[in-house]
């Protein structure tokens, strides 16, 4: 097979010449693939339904007796489909995808956290030294607040008001406080 992107001969899913994953690739939009609306508030059952109907069309088992080109493409289609479901089923990934176009943080650790937020965490740590357990309690409350804030942002956006500029930062904060909760529970 010839790579669609650099015209080099390619064997397997990834082109040796340009590293392009041969189509259908991961670039596929999960919302389109699963046939669900481009929203944050999604019905999990609808995701599964879209997944099942698509899986029946593209799964490698449906192509086992067909030529290699179809088998290979069906493998990639199904990998994309599985990834799409994984992303849309996870509220944080779904939120990031809507806000930034990518399900994973653009850089490792996500965007830089606001100094005021970090100062607050520092303050929590001090409180925790005086009364152990304070940190995880504060973190848990903040986790709830952040989720509620994200929910509000998306509710407004879905009704045509507001934008998603704050989402990436809030997700980074959420990841941080979730980490704190987990770390201090055990």
């Amino acid at each position: 097979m010839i790579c669609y992107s650099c015209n080099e001969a390619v064997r397997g899913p990834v082109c040796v010449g340009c590293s392009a994953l041969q189509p259908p690739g991961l670039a596929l939009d999960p919302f389109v693939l699963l046939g669900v609306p481009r929203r944050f508030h999604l019905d999990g059952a609808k995701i599964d339904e879209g997944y099942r109907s698509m899986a029946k069309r593209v799964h490698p088992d449906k192509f086992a007796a067909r030529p290699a080109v179809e088998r290979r493409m069906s493998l990639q289609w199904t990998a994309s489909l599985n990834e799409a479901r994984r992303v849309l089923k996870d509220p944080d990934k779904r939120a990031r995808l809507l806000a930034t176009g990518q399900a994973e943080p653009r850089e490792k650790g996500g965007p830089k956290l606001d100094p005021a937020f970090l100062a607050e965490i520092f303050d929590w740590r001090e409180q925790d030294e005086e009364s152990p357990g304070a940190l995880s309690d504060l973190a848990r409350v903040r986790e709830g607040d952040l989720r509620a804030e994200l929910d509000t942002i998306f509710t407004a956006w879905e009704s045509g008001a507001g934008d998603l500029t704050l989402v990436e930062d809030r997700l980074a904060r959420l990841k941080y406080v979730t980490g704190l909760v987990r770390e201090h529970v055990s």
Partner: protein
Amino acid sequence: MANIGIDLGTTNSLVAVVMSGKARCLLDETASPLLPSAVRYDDGSVVVGRDARDQAAAHPARTFTSVKRFMGRAPADCVADAALFRYTMDESEERFVRFAVPGRAPVTPVEVSAEVLKVLRARAIECLFGEPGGAVITVPAYFDDAQRQATKDAARIAGLEVLRLLNEPTAAAIAYGLDKREHGVFAVYDLGGGTFDVSILELNDGIFQVLATAGDTHLGGDDFDRALGEHVLTKAGLDRRDDADHRELLLAVEAAKRRLSDAEEATVTVAGATVTVTRADFDALIRPTVERTGAACRQALSDAKLTADKIDAIVLVGGSTRVPLVRTYVGALFGRAPYTDLDPDQVVALGAAMQADILTGSSQLSDDLLLLDVIPLSLGLEVMGGVVEKFIPRCSTIPFSASQSFTTHVDNQTALDLHIVQGDRELARDNRSLGRFTLRGLPLLPAGIPRIRVEFLVDADGILTVSAKEEHTGIESRIEVKPSYGLSDDEIERMLEDSIDNAETDVDVRLLIEARVEADGILTAVQKALGVDGGLLVPGEKEVIDAVVNALTAALPNDDRKRIADLAHKLDEVTAPFAQRRIERDLTLALSGRDAGEVGKQLGLKDSVARGTLDHTPGGKH
């Protein structure tokens, strides 16, 4: 040509096929479906099955049983098991396990398994009056990448085309689900001779989705035998065990174990002493082993995000589930009595045959059924400090792809070692090492600047391909992960050539048959497609395709393997644009109501395949 399903078991192996819409196991000349997975290497001949098993005591050094325990494992991990079975490991080989055989070259577990598969293949040829199409071979769900690769290697040496590796519990669920037309959530509890698996599956809308799987590849009925054996020796006041005695003892206790499934007590005679074992004694001996299965069951439920009361039915698989204590334990664990309607020895092979039939594309059973399986253990890369960066979490539905970027840690670092591991422990050294490869020729840049993108792809057999690329320069490295403790292609080729049933001419004949089978498959597919979708052809295309079809049809009966393969390749090539139009049309239908045009554009579909040439051999046998 019928596809076959094979259960390659630790203790027994079976082959099944769907005939007249019903799956059935193929029987040997004594009307038994079970082929004991025992192989004896005599001078110049190989004995497989019941004779090898029953005479193991007389030929302990040349007889191999339970080799499934050694498939795809590192020699260092096998020392204890080898000692248990009294096998002499060839210590000069560090990469894979090899057993010494008196008077002949050492053998690998892969070769031993291939001998078992050859007998099953011969049985299929006899019963089907011809070469089987392809085979679906079952593996424990908990088998890692290396163990799966080893199984595929064995099939290749035995001259079988593997259509799919299928997880054993999933096979069992297919057998039950199709048989009963059930809907709901199943737990499959599979306790075999040497492996334990539990899987949670949901059947919904014609799709079998594996929700979670867990298990232990070193837990099974063999452990019951051993516990009973130790007990008998102690009771009899014996401690000296040479090889022959040990084999004899294992056979005797295995028989006693079977009797204890129905009787309240059984006697074991060893070295002239007779020991009586009651059911209660036996239960006490095996309880610790049985209870070890509970942890995996709880793990699977937790991964599936379910509690035991959400399970609609429990299916028992594997001969060891005949043990009454196991049935009681499973009943208590899930709070309901397990299904036992199908023969636990046959259910996996029957399910494999059903999946094999579905994969023919013209199934008599259920065209609408689809199976979605998961990867049992997380896949990751070793990063700084020996920590594992997980790429693909366990219980992800396969096929699956994922990618992540890494960077260098020192200035002007020109090479990056990638160490791929499988498992769920935090440190790489606690997980299974699958392979290492090096991305060389990185540009001279300060630490942290290069961006190395690593991509993982797990196919529908659960087998992994990894590629890595430095994004600034495009330097790339790709491997089909050959497990660190696996066989290389060359080694497999050599084994294929060495293999007694495949003397040189046989190899040629087999390759010719393979070429014909493949060409025939392509011809059939093309003719079917032309019949259904002739309207999708563009002017002039039909003439080109017809010319190749005619040439190939004429070449098929002759013995010129290369010509057949070339023409088949050519046919695949000239029909690629047509195939592409059919896929696009199907996908457009699949996406009807969605923005299909946009989807196609993002994929660059047209471009890629119109220019495509094909390698249509599964597993790339070129």
